[in-house]
């Protein structure tokens, strides 16, 4: 019976489409990495490499096979959970990639933990005091923080909180076995920078979505019943505005995972972004492909979650006639 419910069908459809999309993306990633200018062997050995050494390495890496053969070899590996071996270090990609992915997720998690409740709360407050000084102040602050480029915010944080006040370290090098408190301390500055850069989007969307609902007749009824302004927003407006809010929250979470390379570089945080850039520079194609695929999976996955959440939040879809 459950299988026949339209809800399950809808969700299954979304997931299926997501997987198809992922396949399409894998093709694009592979094609994209093939047209990168530059030669893997040359990049691995650097400027100081002799032509002989480069030729030796090319042969050894099997770079002389046709692209289509290499694509299907790669895809076969990925499906069976084998991301392959890095060309540069000859290590299994999973071994070097997992700690970096974990770091990225750790940073994204804490940025999300701080920013999502904060954004929604500020959004609610902005609606409650709409067009008043509090609303203006919240919006002004959020818009200012999103308008400043991340690197600028990062450098300001370093200048004041790390160099002048010396409260936090300016570089966020985390490693295996670092005490948990130290680790949290190390990521304070990048978390603040990330929070500032995603806050405005989520806050403004919360505000707009709720304001939209606030025009409805039932809100007026609630007001006439004598409910307090915050109760109206919390109990009546917010649940009906949740779908667009979830959407924008997911979009920002995806950004926190895949789009933070600038913040990583500034704070020297060993996440996926820098890992990807390092391998692009060296033309380490298998790693670039693996990272690209993981990023795509995160993005598509979070979008599916957003879609499903929106469906679940919609009573008409939840209770079909």
């Amino acid at each position, binding site marked *: 019976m459950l299988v026949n419910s339209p809800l399950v069908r809808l969700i299954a459809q979304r997931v299926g489409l997501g997987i198809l999309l992922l396949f399409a993306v894998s093709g694009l990633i592979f094609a994209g990495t093939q047209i*990168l*200018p*530059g*030669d893997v062997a*040359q*990049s*691995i*050995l*650097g*400027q*100081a*490499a*002799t*032509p*002989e*050494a480069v030729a*030796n*390495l090319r042969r050894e890496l099997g770079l002389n096979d046709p692209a289509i053969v290499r694509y299907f070899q790669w895809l076969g590996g990925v499906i069976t959970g084998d991301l392959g071996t*890095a060309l*540069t*270090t000859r290590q299994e990609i999973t071994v*070097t990639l997992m700690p*970096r992915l974990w770091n990225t997720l750790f940073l994204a998690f804490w940025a999300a933990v701080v920013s999502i409740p904060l954004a929604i709360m500020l959004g609610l407050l902005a609606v409650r005091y709409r067009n008043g000084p509090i609303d203006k102040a919240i919006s002004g602050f959020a818009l200012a923080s999103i308008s400043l480029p991340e690197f600028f915010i990062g*450098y300001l944080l*370093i*200048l004041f909180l*790390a*160099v002048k006040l*010396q409260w936090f*370290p*300016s*570089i966020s*090098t985390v*490693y*295996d076995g670092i005490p948990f408190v130290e680790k949290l301390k190390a990521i304070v500055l990048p978390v603040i920078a990330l929070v500032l850069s995603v806050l405005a989007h989520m806050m403004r969307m919360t505000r707009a979505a709720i304001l939209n609902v606030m025009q409805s007749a039932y809100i007026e009824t609630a007001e006439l019943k004598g409910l307090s302004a915050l109760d109206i927003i919390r109990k009546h407006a917010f649940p009906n505005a949740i779908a667009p809010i979830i959407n924008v929250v997911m979009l920002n979470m995806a950004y926190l995972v895949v789009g933070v390379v600038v913040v990583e*570089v*500034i*704070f*020297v945080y*060993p996440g996926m972004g*820098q*890992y990807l850039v*390092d*391998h*692009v*520079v*060296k033309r*380490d194609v298998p790693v670039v492909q693996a990272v690209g695929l993981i990023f795509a999976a995160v993005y598509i996955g979070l979008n599916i979650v957003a879609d499903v959440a929106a469906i679940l939040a919609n009573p008409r879809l939840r209770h079909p006639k």
Partner: protein
Amino acid sequence: MSQELDYLSRRFAAGRLSRREFLGRATALGVSATFANSLLAGAAKAQTPKRGGILKAGIVGGAATDTLDPAKFIELMSYFGKCWGEFLVALTGDGGLENRLAEEIGSSKDAKVWTFKIRQDVEFHNGKTVTAEDVVATLERHSNKESQSGALGILAGIGSVKADGRDVVVTLKEPNAELPYLMADYHLVIQPNGGKDNPAEGISAGPYKVTVNEPGVRHGGERFANFWQSDKMGFADQVEIVAINDTTARVSALQGGQVHMINKVETKVVDLIQRVPNLKVEALSGPGHYCFNMFCDTAPFDNADLRMALKLAVDRQEMVDKILRGYGTVGNDFPINAAYPLFPEGIEQRAFDPDKAKFHYQKSGHSGPILLRASEVAFAGAVDAAQLFQQSAAKAGIAIEVKREPGDGYWSEVWNKQPFCAANWRGRATQGWMYSTTYLSTAPWNDTHFFNERFDKLLIQALGELDQDKRENLYREMAVIVRDEGGTIVPMFNQFIDAISDQLGGYVGRVDSLMNGYALTQCWLEA
């Protein structure tokens, strides 16, 4: 003046300046003899190494793709290699060599057969004793034609290597009077069985044992208890290198006390750092230079007059002032400066001369704009330098079009592929080494496509010449040929700029950034 004195004191303390020399040069700076003497006492006292602590460096150029295999060392890994690796020799910084695992070095009269006597009772980190066989295996691995070693180019001249008791006997195909210098190359870490079994295991006989190896993030080592020279190196209990590629992040890490030394400080922030009370800037004139390379065999640069016109159309002093902000010296269109042993003094300095440039340009018969490619990765400020070149050349009626190339892929797609582009060379320990790397007709990176029979002959002759005066004269003639006929424009020699915290003791400028990589092993933490 105080900086100068400070420098002299440290040179003295490090044993690179005699007491007499120190007093002479200090008084020449206008210091009274009594004060100079008290400085001496202070310098000697301040320079007593202190043991313990964790010494940290923030270094540029680390990547997740780095490996512990010395054959594939680049950038940051060459610094870490100096922490755990041991070499046959090391450069002293005044043109000389310090024997490390090689106790004695001798050669046959024709500089073709070299003998390195290996120091006894030196232990690898794994407890094995360093033998001549290990050294032979190391040289074999790096000089093997199938090898991917960065040192393959310099070792290509090796005919055979064999062990004879404690001696390593290297027989060359062609004579090379400078072979011992080549052994200081940072790839040539002596490994057990030459690293043939497991090249990336990180075992050698250096002062620190590898404990942390997270490529692109950090690398660390702890003091090796059985290090053979523990009175001279390895003062800190642990050393750590943090990969910090962003310039601002490097400086702020130093300011925040998270590292004690950083390399590659950009010239535009040097003045700012000098104003920070607990930091010091260390600028060192080395053999590194910035250049614009023309292919001598590709039109229009195959015309000697056009090459000369372009050389005369560069305002060198302006580039030193504006691109290097004074942290460097003007170049003279050959890749050698006074940082090299046997530097040929007295070759006339080429200067900006728009009239002469115009004359040669007209004589070349060329017309139309000349495309110059540049990118920030060619050297810091390369695009700006190319634009300065464009403006000064315009004064001579030469039109240069500057094309900014993407940094990614520059070394594989532009440099040594396009006929006119910006580049840099970090330099080599000797002139012969530098010339055979880039100017010999058969050089692996003949990046100016320079094919000159006379030059090749002189180089081979110089490399076979053990008499230093004669070799210097040969080098002079070669320098003049490259300067006047070659395809390279060398407007400036850049200084290596490090910044260090005042907690750091024992720092002495030497050869390259961070004491040629030895700062972590030879410096210590004060108090």
